[in-house]
């Protein structure tokens, strides 16, 4: 206006009309909350016509039993509260959420009134209710804690507090580094990790914490940075599941398997020692269980001037396989103590009978719960006084190299040792070879032959093993073994290991 004055009633009309289509607005009598006026937006949103709605009080539209919501309604109507949300029931019977601002207006015809300027917030409320529902579900199922960027705890739910054995008061302000594993907290890795979270990275993992009694708590957890309106993280939310029980039993199991591997190592120690003494620099020995302990094993003894070297592959791998290996080794000692002059074939027959007895596999027909376990075996006996090599094998081929020539493959007897289904009186045949200068004898377990890999993703195979050994035949035998192993590992490539494997090579002459 040129003179700086306003025609306020014209302006008020203009505003009322402008709001008419867009902002649901009601004029309420303060005394009883009766609707004196409703604009078209309010009528259309609440599905009333103008005359219907003016007969209602806010109480009619907002049916509520909760005291604080009733108070909120009254406060909006009398102007004690500047804004709030109300759920109103429309003429269509549906619920509509309105966010109201309560605005003072001059009395209308001497009646004290408030103008409620509204906005439909039904969707927001629906989203909020859903989010809250989800959040409380998470809250019920997971330990939650929030930290500021300094790592101080600023919030935690009941589950978290119960795990940590502290009240919220006791835990507030406690540093993340004070509750997580002290070794981790003291590491450079820790400060880098926390910095990464503060930069907005999400991280998940399994970590160890200490509760207020100092006990280990293992959490499988996700750290979520929470972003402020400026787009920067301002706190870190930790959502975690307690996996302490599972973790401790896992550790116990791993400890127990690791300890078993010490026993299996000790069991092998004597064999390694005999091999070093009897054939220094003239042997190779590879033993690689798939899972810490294994069902493959080797056995070397010097008995009555003859050197016995055996390779066994017991059914199964891991712990069950390892059980069998310990039975096998003690049975071998027992057999050689009782019978010094056995041929390897006879030795395998004895071993077969003993395993059948020990595992109660004497009868060939098995009952429902009976086992049928046994082993593949190679038994080599070097009689250097007579210059003869005696070799017997159950299921595993043996390769004999002399000079540059293609290896001779000794065919195994096709019967496993110890199995229930293999008859008690089964015989294994013994090959007798004169020991020639430079003669090398190799054998491997089927973990090598069957390992999938290579260009066609098929097993390494017996022929490829012999060929690989032959290719490295110019090297000293210890190096030949390592080179062959390296080629094998390259062949395996990215394929995972299927089985234990072991191989042994002896330079007899």
């Amino acid at each position, binding site marked *: 206006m040129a003179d700086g004055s306003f025609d306020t009633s014209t302006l008020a009309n203009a505003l009322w009309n402008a709001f008419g289509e867009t902002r649901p607005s009601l004029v309420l009598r303060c005394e009883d909350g009766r609707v004196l006026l409703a604009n078209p937006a309010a009528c259309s949103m609440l599905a009333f016509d103008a005359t219907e709605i003016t007969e209602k009080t806010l109480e009619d539209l907002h049916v509520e039993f909760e005291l604080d919501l009733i108070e909120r309604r009254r406060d909006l109507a009398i102007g004690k509260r500047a804004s709030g949300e109300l759920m109103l029931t429309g003429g269509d019977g549906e619920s509509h959420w309105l966010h109201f601002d309560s605005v003072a207006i001059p009395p209308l015809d001497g009646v004290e009134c408030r103008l409620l300027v509204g906005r439909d917030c039904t969707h927001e409320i629906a989203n909020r209710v859903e989010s809250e529902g989800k959040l409380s579900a998470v809250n019920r199922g997971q330990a939650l804690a929030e930290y500021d960027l300094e790592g101080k705890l600023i919030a935690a739910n009941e589950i978290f507090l119960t795990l940590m054995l502290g009240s919220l008061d006791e835990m507030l302000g406690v540093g993340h580094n004070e509750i997580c594993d002290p070794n981790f907290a003291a590491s450079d890795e820790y400060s880098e990790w926390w910095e990464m979270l503060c930069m907005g990275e999400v991280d998940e993992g399994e970590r160890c914490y200490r509760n207020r009694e100092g006990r280990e708590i293992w959490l499988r957890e996700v750290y979520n940075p929470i972003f402020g309106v400026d787009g920067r993280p301002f706190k870190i939310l930790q959502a975690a599941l307690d996996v302490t029980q599972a973790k401790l039993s896992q550790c116990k199991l791993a400890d127990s398997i690791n300890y078993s591997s010490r026993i299996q190592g000790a069991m092998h120690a004597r064999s390694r020692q005999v091999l070093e003494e009897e054939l220094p620099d003239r042997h190779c020995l590879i033993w690689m269980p798939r899972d810490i302990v294994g069902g493959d094993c080797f056995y070397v003894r010097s008995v009555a001037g003859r050197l016995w070297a055996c390779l066994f592959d017991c*059914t199964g791998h891991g712990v069950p396989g390892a059980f069998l290996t310990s039975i096998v080794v003690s049975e071998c000692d027992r057999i050689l103590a009782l019978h010094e002059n056995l041929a390897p074939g006879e030795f395998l027959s004895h071993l077969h009978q003993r395993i059948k007895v020990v595992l109660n596999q004497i009868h060939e027909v098995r009952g429902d719960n009976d086992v049928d376990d046994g082993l593949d075996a190679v038994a080599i006996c070097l009689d250097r006084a007579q210059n003869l090599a005696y070799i017997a094998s159950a299921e595993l081929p043996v390769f004999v190299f002399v000079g540059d020539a293609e290896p001779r493959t000794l065919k195994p007897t096709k019967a496993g040792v110890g199995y229930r289904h293999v008859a008690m009186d089964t015989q294994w045949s013994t090959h007798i070879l004169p020991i020639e200068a430079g003669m090398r004898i190799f054998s491997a377990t089927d973990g090598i032959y069957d390992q999938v890999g290579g260009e066609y993703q098929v097993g390494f195979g017996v022929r490829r093993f012999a060929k690989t050994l032959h290719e490295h035949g110019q090297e000293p035998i210890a190096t030949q073994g390592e080179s062959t192993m390296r080629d094998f590992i390259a062949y395996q490539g990215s394929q995972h290991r299927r089985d234990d494997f072991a191989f042994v090579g002896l330079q007899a002459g």
Partner: protein
Amino acid sequence: MSKLQIAAGSTTPEVSFHFDLGVFILSGESYPEDVRSFYDAPMKQFYDWLASSGDKPVVLAFKFGYFNSATAKVILDAMTAMEKAAGNGRMCKVQWHYAPHDDNIRDLGEEFGEELSAAKFELVEIKPPAPSAA
């Protein structure tokens, strides 16, 4: 039931037993930690069917890329049952499939085949899929 179908797992083969056709197929890799807990139930169905289906011809097909020694025992038992049925005059055929270049699996199949005389044994090289027509 006319068919037993078990999908392959990471260490267990696919089982396709067509009881109505008399066709039984194991394919894939087989090295479960506990071989019996995997094989006992399906193999019992096979043996029960074998015992109760008269003179109906049987085809047992193995299509392995890898199997452990405990699985070898399952294979051997099944072949022994086939051999026995064939000895009684029944038409029994064991097929051993191997991938091209898989000498190891072929050799192992040959060894199994040597155990059979009455039952027919076939070594089958798996043909790579034919290139599609342009």
